[in-house]
């Protein structure tokens, strides 16, 4: 019996020839990630361990992105705690305001993630890096503390599920719609504990940005990891950013899967996930009349160049509905700068939107776009849970950047085609 890409990466990092699903292993990790809300808890646990130094100062990434630039005094204290730890342990990959970005946009861009690597992050969307053919998974702060001290962690080898996309995507369908389609099909617990492997010509046709979006939301189906085998696009992306050795793994033809799903892209249109679960998906043609108060374009899910370009294409020369607040958040400083040079920022501002420095801010109800009771937001983020963006009686509708931009103009959920005619 062959192995899946996930099993191969885990076996290699555990020093084993093979592993099987369900097996408990101890594996060496290539990178440990934390942010300004999870690292402070991890740092306290790390100090309880009583060790003097971290396992490797080059293999820890600390990114203040959730409540930074500091939203208030408590957030400032958290950010300071992480900054002081980074200084004390001379952490190479600490990103201060000015260099920082949304962690899952930033790390691949900075070349901190390569194919075949094993990455853990104290953030559930760490699974994003599977787009590069790495095994990356979210853990809690205590796991982060243990890994910062020892460089290894225990894992239960997950079984894998394979999702194959055939055919050509319809207009305005992107990675967001493909992953929402899967979640709508299998449910928010449909892949619990599983590695979700995405394959087929539909995935091959996706840009790297689209692939990051897909893997990012594996956790929204309960997945332990989302993963895409590296191809020429992956290698080209990595070549510009990574100068260390890495391994390319792909699944064997006779690898075992707990489930294989085949989808025809001809049947998939842009989707909107209605409150309060990402599985509540509806095709944009069937959303009905849903007025909105706010539109957010950004986040670790959809805050990359391709996302901003798509949104700008729809907003160019048009105005946001006066009843709607449009908030655009580029994922990193490099994306921000590139968007500025391409004129996208000008387009957003002229359309009546605001553009923020990179932050997770509104996605998790932190700041920069909190919702009042009864308000509705269309958002390119990843979760529409009760109270996710603010008041427990507010509502979040998840969509791709094209739908979010079109909806901002229409003042209600709308398809890009309605706006462009």
């Amino acid at each position, binding site marked *: 019996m062959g192995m899946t890409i996930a099993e191969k990466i885990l076996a290699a990092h555990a020093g084993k020839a093979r592993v099987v699903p369900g097996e408990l292993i101890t594996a060496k990790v290539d990178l440990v990630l934390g942010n300004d809300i999870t690292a402070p*808890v991890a740092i306290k646990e790390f100090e309880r361990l009583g060790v003097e130094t971290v396992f490797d100062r080059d293999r820890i990434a600390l990114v203040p992105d959730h409540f930074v630039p500091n*939203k208030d005094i408590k957030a400032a204290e958290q950010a300071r705690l992480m900054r002081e730890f980074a200084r004390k342990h001379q952490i190479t990959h600490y990103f201060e305001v000015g260099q920082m970005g949304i962690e899952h946009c930033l790390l691949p861009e900075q070349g901190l993630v390569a194919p075949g690597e094993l990455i853990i992050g104290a953030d559930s969307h760490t699974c994003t890096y599977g787009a590069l053919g790495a095994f990356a998974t979210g*853990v*809690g*702060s*205590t796991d982060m503390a243990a890994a910062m001290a020892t460089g290894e962690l225990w894992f239960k080898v997950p079984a894998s599920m394979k999702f194959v996309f055939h055919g050509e995507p319809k207009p305005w369908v992107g990675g967001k719609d493909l992953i929402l389609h899967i979640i709508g099909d299998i449910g928010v617990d449909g892949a619990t504990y599983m590695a979700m492997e995405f394959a087929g010509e539909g995935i091959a046709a996706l840009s790297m940005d689209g692939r990051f979006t897909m893997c990012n939301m594996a956790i929204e189906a*309960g997945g332990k990891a989302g993963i895409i085998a590296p191809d020429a696009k992956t290698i080209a992306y990595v070549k510009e950013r990574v100068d260390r050795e890495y391994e390319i793994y792909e699944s064997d033809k006779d690898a075992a899967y707990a489930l294989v799903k085949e989808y025809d892209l001809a049947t998939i249109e842009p989707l909107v996930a209605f409150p309060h679960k990402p599985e509540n998906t509806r095709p944009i043609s069937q959303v009905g009349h849903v007025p909105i108060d706010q539109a957010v374009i950004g986040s670790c899910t959809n805050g990359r160049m391709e996302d901003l370009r798509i949104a700008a294409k729809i907003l160019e020369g048009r105005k946001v509905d006066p009843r709607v607040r449009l908030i655009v958040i580029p994922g990193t400083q490099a994306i921000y700068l590139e968007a500025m040079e391409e004129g996208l920022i000008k387009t957003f501002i002229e359309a009546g939107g605001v553009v923020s420095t990179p932050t997770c801010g509104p996605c*998790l109800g932190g700041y920069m776009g909190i919702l009042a009771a009864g308000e509705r937001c269309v958002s390119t983020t990843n979760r529409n849970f*009760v109270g*996710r963006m603010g008041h427990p009686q507010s509502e979040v509708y998840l969509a791709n950047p094209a739908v979010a931009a079109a909806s901002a103009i229409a003042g209600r959920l709308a398809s890009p085609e309605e706006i462009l005619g």
Partner: protein
Amino acid sequence: MGKLQGRAFIFKDNVDTDQIYPGRYLELTDPKAIAAHAMEGADPAFPEKVRPGDIIVAGKNFGCGSSREHAVIALKEAGVGAVLALSFGRIFYRNAINLGLPAIRLAEAPKAAEGDLLTIDLEEGTIALPDGGILSFAPFPPEIRKIIQGGGIIPLVKSEQLG
């Protein structure tokens, strides 16, 4: 690992970590302050009602969503003795075990109402129900038992890997 006894608090399917511990409180670090918001998104009165040893009884996918360990810290500090659910979000489950909070997966929902007294035997893998019935569950494997007995993963890492 012995017996746990507490009153049942019943919750539905898919209680995510934003309901267990809303994102707006993620800047808090003091466990007592964190506990004051436990389960607030699902039942705002929970922090006032809960007493030490009480047991959360939930449907499927309890703790799905964010990796925030604050969700487990909040429950533990609020005095929750164990969480019973038909299934768990993976990261929540791992965090609960890592912090020594028993998270127990059940094959069927226990016949219990809000406030009923439940007795859990972690060694035997049984739950004594108010109607005299017994519900069984698979006891923790040795690796996980060791973590819970040791009071979480940190003391274990300290003694085994760093000792």
